[in-house]
């Protein structure tokens, strides 16, 4: 058997409190497309970062062409011929395709960039990929799919031997996807080793030769693709003891408080669902499936192009978060720092930001005493760990920051509360408290909508789950029907199947 071009030996990466990777050994050979699968948090990203040298493993070594890579770094791995293409593309949008492909490696003529040579070389690389793009075009005028091809061309032009593709299909349309597959097959024929990371089962079975499963920082096993099935892969990915960390909860389904009928935004294509008082409604789906977009549309944060929203049976126009709050909807956004907090403001000012307008006198001056009182109550109730309510929020831990946002919305006493990834990046203790809070709210008769990419969490915390794929709802599961395999199957349902 031919020697592996890339080998990882006993890689361990420890972060304070957790092992992101635990003694992982894995090899990759030339001319092979090797899928890496696993849930979020399984350790895939850490694994890639170790290969590219973006992070250093705590233990273990990366071996390339039989030699250990010493002092790995992104520059070093790239010089050796290892490249990674991430979901977020690394292109200069205002430069041309050719300039991007050869960025910083321009051929020069009398001290000036030789654009003729540049375009000629770029055309050659693009031809090799079978891509017809004018190298003079600006990258910003290309679709995301083509931009991705430019990124691939860029790595090709650098004599790449190992290419890592991180969810390359996430942003592509079906046509672009076909194209990408062709290219991956071409690269494979040229003898490249390709690490293909994807959540989409169909694509893994169509494209890959081998598949390796990760779970909770452990390497589980590698199989030839023809020796396994979709069901087996999913089982290996999620086969986790569902520890009893989720509080027991008996839903008391009440009045239908929210009905969404056929709404469309730039990303959503006709989403309809209902939410009830006293019920915890979960939204499952892959990243980019439209869960966050649904939440934002209902909350008035994104423009709704068509469709209707009924609240308490009445048709309601929600055009801004202002409207949503008026009608008793709250959104705990997925990106705490960018969308939920004022990092340079105090805990108090963050908590009272929305509520403050309810405790002003005739001149619009906020009643400070009252404000401190209610903020104090929230801090106590949610056990926010902060030296004082005047502490800047940026000095708090992630869990406590999230509690500050929760406090802000609890004050508003909304009837419909949407949690978008409420426990992302939060330690176990705080997670537990947030679960209890969610249950408490449902018990009070509020409608809770929960979006989460952590399946066990979503399953443990939902009374009903709506699964989304590609901007549509691909299925709905009642409590008794909920299981991981079903959710993953619905979540990776391709568009044609639905149509």
């Amino acid at each position: 058997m031919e020697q592996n071009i890339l080998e990882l030996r006993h890689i361990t990466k420890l972060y304070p409190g957790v092992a992101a990777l635990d003694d992982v050994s894995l090899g990759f050979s030339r001319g092979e497309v090797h899928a890496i699968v696993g849930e979020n948090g399984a350790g895939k990203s850490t694994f890639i970062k170790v290969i590219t040298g973006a992070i250093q493993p705590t233990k273990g070594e990366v071996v390339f062409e039989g030699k250990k890579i010493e002092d790995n770094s992104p520059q070093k791995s790239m010089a050796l011929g290892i490249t990674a293409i991430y979901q977020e593309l690394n292109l200069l949008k205002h430069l041309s395709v050719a300039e991007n492909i050869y960025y910083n490696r321009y051929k020069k003529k009398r001290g000036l960039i030789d654009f003729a040579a540049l375009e000629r070389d770029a055309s050659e690389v693009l031809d090799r990929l079978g891509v017809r793009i004018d190298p003079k075009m600006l990258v910003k005028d290309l679709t995301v799919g083509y931009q991705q091809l430019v990124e691939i061309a860029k790595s090709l032009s650098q004599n790449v031997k190992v290419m890592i593709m991180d969810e390359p299909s996430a942003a592509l349309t079906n046509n672009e996807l076909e194209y990408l597959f062709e290219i991956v097959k071409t690269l494979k024929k040229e003898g490249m080793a390709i690490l293909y990371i994807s959540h989409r089962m169909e694509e893994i079975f169509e494209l890959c030769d081998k598949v390796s499963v990760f779970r909770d920082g452990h390497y589980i096993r590698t199989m030839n693709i023809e020796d396994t099935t979709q069901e087996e892969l999913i089982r290996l990915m999620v086969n986790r003891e569902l520890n009893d960390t989720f509080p027991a909860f008996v839903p008391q389904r009440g009045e239908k408080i929210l009905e969404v009928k056929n709404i469309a935004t730039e990303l959503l294509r006709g989403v309809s669902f209902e939410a009830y008082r006293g019920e915890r409604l979960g939204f499952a789906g892959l990243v980019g499936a439209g869960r966050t977009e649904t939440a934002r549309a209902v909350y008035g944060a994104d423009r709704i192009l068509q469709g209707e929203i009924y609240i308490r049976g009445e048709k309601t126009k929600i055009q801004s978060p202002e409207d949503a709050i008026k009608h008793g909807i709250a959104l705990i956004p997925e990106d705490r720092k960018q969308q939920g907090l004022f990092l340079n403001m105090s805990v108090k000012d963050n908590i009272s930001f929305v509520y403050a307008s309810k405790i002003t006198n005739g001149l619009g001056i906020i009643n400070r005493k009252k404000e401190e009182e209610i903020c104090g109550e929230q801090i106590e109730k949610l056990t926010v760990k902060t030296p004082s309510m005047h502490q800047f929020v940026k000095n708090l831990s992630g869990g406590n920051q999230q509690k500050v946002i929760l406090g802000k919305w609890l004050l508003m006493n909304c009837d419909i509360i949407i949690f978008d990834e409420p426990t992302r990046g939060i330690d176990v203790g705080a997670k537990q408290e947030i679960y209890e809070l969610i249950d408490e709210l449902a018990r009070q008769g509020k409608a809770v909508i929960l979006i989460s990419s952590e399946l066990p969490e979503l399953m443990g915390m939902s009374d009903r789950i709506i699964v989304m794929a590609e901007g549509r709802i691909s299925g709905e599961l009642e409590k008794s029907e909920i299981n991981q395999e079903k959710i993953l199957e619905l979540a990776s349902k391709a568009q044609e199947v639905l149509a």
Partner: protein
Amino acid sequence: MKEKIDTKVKKIEWSNMGIIIALIVMVLFFSFSTATFLTPNNLANIARQISIVGICALGMTCVILTGGIDLSIGSLIGVVVVTCALLMNKGVNPFLVVLVGFLIGAVIGIINATCITYLKIPPIITTLGMMISLRGATYLISGGMPIYGIPEGFKILGQGSIGIIPISMIIMVIVFIFGYIMLNKTVFGRRIYGIGGNEETTRLSGVNVKKEIYKIYIMVGLLGTLASLILMSRVNSGQPSAGDGYEMDIITAVVLGGVSVSGGEGRLSKVIVGVVFMGVLANGMMMLNINEYWQRVVKGIVLIVAVAVDIRSREKKAKLKTA
């Protein structure tokens, strides 16, 4: 951990003292090096001079807190001054003229806000365009000549005083008290900080950000008008060059007062110090007979140093945070 936070707070406050120490040193220097600086007359004069910059500084503080900037304020002063002077010169009732002045200020604010919110032109470009156009308008309205014939009674605004305290100074103090309450104790103030600190969070918190931006720029226009009327009254005429370059003095004063040019951070109480600093600096240099060109050189350097200090202290904060 707690201790670390405490020392950090102290350190930040220490760096905040810089501008106050610089002001004290400067006052001492001018007091000893000139015979005229520390006289009641001159101090009243400084008060009159700074009242115009000071009143506008409140508006500028709000704008910069939201992450914007207003370059058009000097030209706004020009337009309001010559228009009001012309109307008064034609014998229009001064109260009506004042009303027209405020109307002009508000309309300019609305235009600025519309360009920024709906046309999505960055504030620096919007107000740069306004600055150029309005200055042109100022010369058109005045025909390039000073306008005289302002009623005697109008002088009191810029030249009158109660005891030894100039009326314009009293107006400025009232404006600052109003501004202090607004920024620190009202929901509007919170929103101003919110927009500059994190516009998306502000929006998702149910704030109509566009509406707030309108309010802010209208306020800037109204404060600018107030300052214009004081200026017109003080020089007792409508000069086509009125307010020329004031935007720079105002911005410098605000930045000197520690308001972050990236928005969201800064206290009005310190902007007052910045305003006084700029006033004392200009007056003292005049007392020392430093020529006008050198004065400009110094003012420019002060602006750059102020921003450099601001950025440095911010970086230090960031380092402390990660440490």
